[in-house]
């Protein structure tokens, strides 16, 4: 992430400007791929990645003027927005699943036979993994994804999740156990 724009040296305004040094375009240019990746990994195949990315930057456009670096880094701020958007999408999917029934139907996942075999395998793996992850505790799930997929350190995860590092390790441990249990159930059911 690029360093934020700082005021000109030697210029001491009488009153500190309350204008964010970021613009929507600059933030998008620098962080769109990261947000996209988060949307893919946290949302899973059931969530429309492009929809999530657009939603995130809609929120960014609205809140960017009030963003203050003193409250935290821009990356952390974007992550929290992305998490909330994904959480909202997943909650909506659960309601649709509940109302209409059929995880496959609401997930909108239809294996594309035109894809190459490795892509198909990858697609199937994602589907199985996220089927297991979807039923997990949200904090455990997040910790697992951030650690295993995002390759974040414990300290980085702690900052993102606003928790202590030890708590993050506990969540990770529980997430791993829960994942294995769910995958075993899938195996048994299939």
């Amino acid at each position, binding site marked *: 992430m690029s360093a934020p724009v700082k005021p000109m040296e030697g210029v001491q305004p009488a009153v500190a400007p309350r204008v964010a040094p970021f613009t*929507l*375009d600059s933030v*998008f240019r620098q962080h*769109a*791929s990261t947000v*996209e*990746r988060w949307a*893919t*990994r946290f949302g*899973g195949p059931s969530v429309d990645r*492009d929809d999530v*990315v*657009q*939603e*995130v*930057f*809609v929120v*960014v*456009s*609205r809140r960017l003027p009030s963003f203050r670096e003193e409250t935290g880094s821009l990356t952390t701020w974007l992550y929290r927005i992305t998490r909330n958007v994904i959480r909202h999408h997943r909650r909506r999917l659960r309601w649709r699943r509940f109302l209409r029934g059929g995880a496959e139907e609401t997930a909108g996942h239809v294996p594309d036979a035109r894809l190459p075999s490795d892509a198909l*395998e*990858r697609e199937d*793996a*994602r589907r*199985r*993994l*996220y089927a297991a992850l979807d039923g997990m505790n949200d904090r455990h799930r997040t910790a697992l994804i951030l*650690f*295993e*997929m995002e*390759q974040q*350190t*414990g300290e980085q995860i702690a900052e993102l999740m606003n928790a202590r590092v*030890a708590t993050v*390790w*506990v969540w*990770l*441990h529980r997430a*791993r156990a829960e*994942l*294995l249990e769910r*995958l*075993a159930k899938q195996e048994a059911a299939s």
Partner: protein
Amino acid sequence: MSAPSRWTDGAANGPREQAAAELLRAAAEVSPSSPEQLAALLQGAKARALLRSPWAWLKVPLLVSAAGGLLWLALPRPEAPAPPPTAAKTNVDVNVDVDVDGDGDGDVAGQPADAVEHAPSAVAQLEALTLGGREHRRPSTSLGENGETPVQNHALSAAPRLRLPRASAEGLGVNGGGTGPKSSQPLGLNGGETARPVTVGAAAPDTLAEEARLLSLALTQLRKGHDAPAAVQTLEEHRARFPAGLLAREVKVALAEALRAAGRTEALLTLLAQLEAEGFSTYPRGAALQLLFAQVSAEQGLCAAALQLLDGLPAEHASAAEDVRARCAGP
């Protein structure tokens, strides 16, 4: 607690953990969007942000409201509810009742109210003066020119109730000839009717009240006071002060009666000629006025004019018309 090793880095220790790690590695692969796709995502985000802006969804209703307001201002305003029929249209002779003798019972010339039904109206009296007999007519009910019912005029409530002559139903049209103000509506004699409220129009209440006061005074002087010259003077005062007054027509009819009673034949003929020019049908009891004109003309030896005036008189005046013809036929 020490930091654990990642399964995706090969630290998985069992077949199940390794299988899970495989899934995690597969799921971790992300196909990034192209720059064009990202640009499209940015434009999409901006469009969504605009739609969700409160001003975006307020804009349309605000525009519609503004357009509606401008349209409302531009369009002609609906007219105020039509006021009660004006006296100019309906004439007080329709509705103004004057208690001539001031006893509060709505009678005419000293007669009690229950005798009103058999008491001749002023025009009937006028007719009686010309016909040599007392006649009365059953009143005919009629509505205003626009079908409205008379409205009580509180401004006249203080004036003595005046029973004014009413034209016969066949005598009046809305646009009966002449240049005078239009008559109101077909009227019947008021001989048998009880007091009816006056219908007033756009004139100021105080002006109409003054007009009615003078007219009432004149009729009182004429019928109760038997002071025809005083009545003529009062009516002339009314004509001078209110040349286009709401009661102008009634005043002229009353003036004809007063001039007849005062014996001022020349002035009467002049007045009747004026009324003929305006059209007798536009006046209350127009047929009676026409007959009166014929009678006075015959008395003055103007038989040619008198016989011409007899044309078109209704059948109810047939007897009086025969008398005029007989007079003009000469000995």
